[in-house]
């Protein structure tokens, strides 16, 4: 609905990225931007029959120097706060008080962590307990840690970023699975584009190594079982489904004039973002996503490549492939980010925008993420990013060379 009007150009000037491959925009370009298909890290045993992309080895102290701050968080918030710091560093504004105290903070967040051990113990006692409600009020006051509650609150990722990195111009947290990432980018871009903001730190994080979160997706039978294959192969060989991934992406985006004045170099610009929600049946979904595409301005452009957040959930991912092939021709190179990072839900859309921006800056699109993807050639100048949520919502962005 809220189509971005291009009043002011919106530049991406900083990227923070953490995935199973490691950390940092430069490192990710090195791993993903070469000539051969990168091989993602996967954990297949711990949560079998589910595969997840794990957190790489982290030294949290590099971006969250105070131990006390680290202790107040669990891995989801640590990951987001860490990645936000990487983005600020990359944009050259880290610890620039004047800059960060005026910077807007926009976070895509899910729900926080649970104490898996404590949940397990309560389940064990509850099975033969006559009054489970009573059991809960006896156990929970002793079992729950106060700090865990703070690690559970959705808006506390933003709270921690404000505390650790002093970003305090404004603060808002969006929720809603994959759509949270779309809304966060869309809102930050719309505000800068309309002159309501000049500089924003925007992104999201997801911790896939949590059985409580696997459970949520499996309630709807959305997880891939016994297959961590890349998206196209997964859909060919199995019933499809999500392979979750621990990942986080944060971007510093700003008004181009503001960035020029402070001498910042852009990766790329975000030219349009659009999204919608509606019934998921082909009769309705196709015209709806066609309209989203039109609103980004991408359908009138030569698109050099697409970075897709496809979940791997069969119907919607196949519909997306048909739609994109119809719009851009069967030769269009599509890179399924989720084949590399896994599905980082709230982190998906920001991660894809980061990858698009890195390709544009480096004048090269990515090698095939699997054999069935079309190879790319030449220097890209316009990249489309797509997000079709596993059950609800769709969004797209047009990322272009400045």
């Amino acid at each position, binding site marked *: 609905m809220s189509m971005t009007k291009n009043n002011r150009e919106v530049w991406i000037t900083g990227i923070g990225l953490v995935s199973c491959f490691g950390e940092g925009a430069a490192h990710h370009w090195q791993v993903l931007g070469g000539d051969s298909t990168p091989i993602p890290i996967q954990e297949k045993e711990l949560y079998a029959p589910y595969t997840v992309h794990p957190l790489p080895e982290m030294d949290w102290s590099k971006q969250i120097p105070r131990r006390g701050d680290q202790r107040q968080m669990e891995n989801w918030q640590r990951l987001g706060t860490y990645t936000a710091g990487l983005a600020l560093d990359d944009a050259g504004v880290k610890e620039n008080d004047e800059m960060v105290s005026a910077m807007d903070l926009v976070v895509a967040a899910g729900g926080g962590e649970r104490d898996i051990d404590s949940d397990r113990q309560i389940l064990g006692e509850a099975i033969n307990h006559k009054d489970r409600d009573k059991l809960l009020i006896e156990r929970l006051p002793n079992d729950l840690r106060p700090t865990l509650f703070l690690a559970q609150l959705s808006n506390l990722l933003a709270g921690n970023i404000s505390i650790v990195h002093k970003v305090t111009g404004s603060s*808002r947290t969006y929720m809603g699975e994959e759509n949270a990432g779309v809304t966060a980018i869309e809102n930050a871009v719309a505000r800068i584009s309309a002159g309501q903001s000049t500089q924003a730190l925007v992104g999201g994080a997801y911790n896939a190594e949590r059985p409580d979160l696997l459970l949520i997706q499996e309630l709807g039978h959305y997880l891939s079982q016994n297959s961590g294959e890349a998206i196209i192969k997964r859909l060919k060989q199995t019933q499809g489904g999500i392979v979750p991934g621990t990942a986080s992406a944060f971007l510093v985006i700003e008004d181009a004039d503001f960035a020029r004045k402070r001498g910042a170099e852009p990766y790329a610009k975000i030219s349009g973002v659009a999204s919608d929600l509606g019934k998921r049946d082909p009769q309705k979904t196709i015209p709806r996503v066609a309209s989203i595409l039109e609103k980004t301005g991408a359908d009138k452009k030569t698109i050099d490549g697409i970075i897709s957040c496809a979940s791997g959930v069969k119907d919607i991912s196949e519909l997306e492939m048909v739609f994109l092939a119809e719009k851009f021709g069967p030769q269009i190179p599509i890179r399924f980010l989720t084949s590399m990072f896994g599905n980082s839900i709230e982190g998906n859309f920001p991660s894809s925008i980061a990858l698009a921006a890195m390709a544009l800056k480096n004048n090269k699109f990515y090698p095939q993420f699997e054999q069935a993807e079309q190879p790319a050639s030449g220097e890209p100048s316009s990249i489309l990013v797509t997000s079709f949520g596993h059950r609800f919502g769709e969004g797209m962005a047009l990322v272009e060379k400045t």
Partner: protein
Amino acid sequence: MSSKYLDHKGRPVIVVTGMGTLTSLGRGKKDNWDAVIAGKSGVKEITRFPTDGLNTRIAGTVDFMDTEEISAPEISYAMAEATAEEALAEAGFGSEGFPGPLYFAAPPVEMEWQHRFTLMDENKDAEPGYKQLLEAARAKRHIHMHLLVQIGGIAYRLAEKFDTKGLPISLSTACASGATSIQQGMEAIRRGDTEAALCVASDGSVTSEGLIRFSLLSALNTQNEEPQKASKPFSKDRSGFVMSEGSAALVLETLEHATNRGAKIQGVIRGVGEKADKFHRTRSSPDGIPVITAISRALDDAGLAGKPVDYINAHGTSTPENDRMEYNSLHSVFGDDISSIPISSNKSMIGHTLTAAGAVEAVFSFMTMQNGKIPPTINYDNPDPDIPLDVVPHVSRDAQVNTVLSNSFGFGGQNACLVFGSDVV
């Protein structure tokens, strides 16, 4: 656009054309207004779950919704649906759908114990734990439970029910969320993205675990003996907030859009101010600067910088720290004028409706202007001498109110302040 439709900064004037609310005091604007004007409290002993041995055994629960299960997502959805329906009906939007986006202040939604127990019972013989629950989930699709535990789930359902436009927005700034939903509707309208926005906030999260978590942060009121007297903002013996449930919805439109379709104008949203805090996860900066900045920005945005307002609808949670910090910040902004501006806390009667508070209190603020009556701060038996404010103690007061400042401050340091007006200026 004709200048009569623009505000002092050349932006579209934003009006409210429909409102709805629901709290522990009842369903709908009228019942709620009658109760707050009469100084009634909706706080009571919790009956939803056993509370033996808990430090806090009271809350402002909403126990009259007809839902399939008693859970935060179901109660929160039912309340949001009711208030959105009331607001849309008042604004005159019917079956043709709503011509703008939904901004929904979403409560913390997650899988609850009853859901875990359901799955456990479906796989009784397995070893207890998440493996057991995952096996149960694999064995049978639980598609409605999946919807309930989607954090965006309530907004998806509301968007479908009321046919709002575009991707519905679920947002959280903790206890400032209700105000933030209104702020984001304003921003979208000011950008020219839309002529209208539906802003809804709802919180039905008084579960045993939810209550115990807040309790562990030592933020909750423990004066269980007389529930209705427990919430006492600005009193010397205030000792924590009362966790409560509720919802509110507001239809925002440009003045031009409302005028062209002949809608009745309920009031004007004049300004908003925001500033985040970097001091601490649950405490505000001792210097009050983030809150002072949020209030000052809101007044400036409304064209009221350096001027008093007619009434302040306080955040007033009844925690020792909040009420003192709120006073200090207001004193810093308004100077000695603050002692003559009436200020009251709806939370003395309805408790803290958390995610919904900013929106519920916005509805009460507009009704204050419409009815020329200021709701009281009840339970003000023991004034805090360090907070010398005119809190409209005990009973409501007749007064002409044309401008209101409404404060919302969240855990995690997110502060949002709104300025409302009775008339287009």
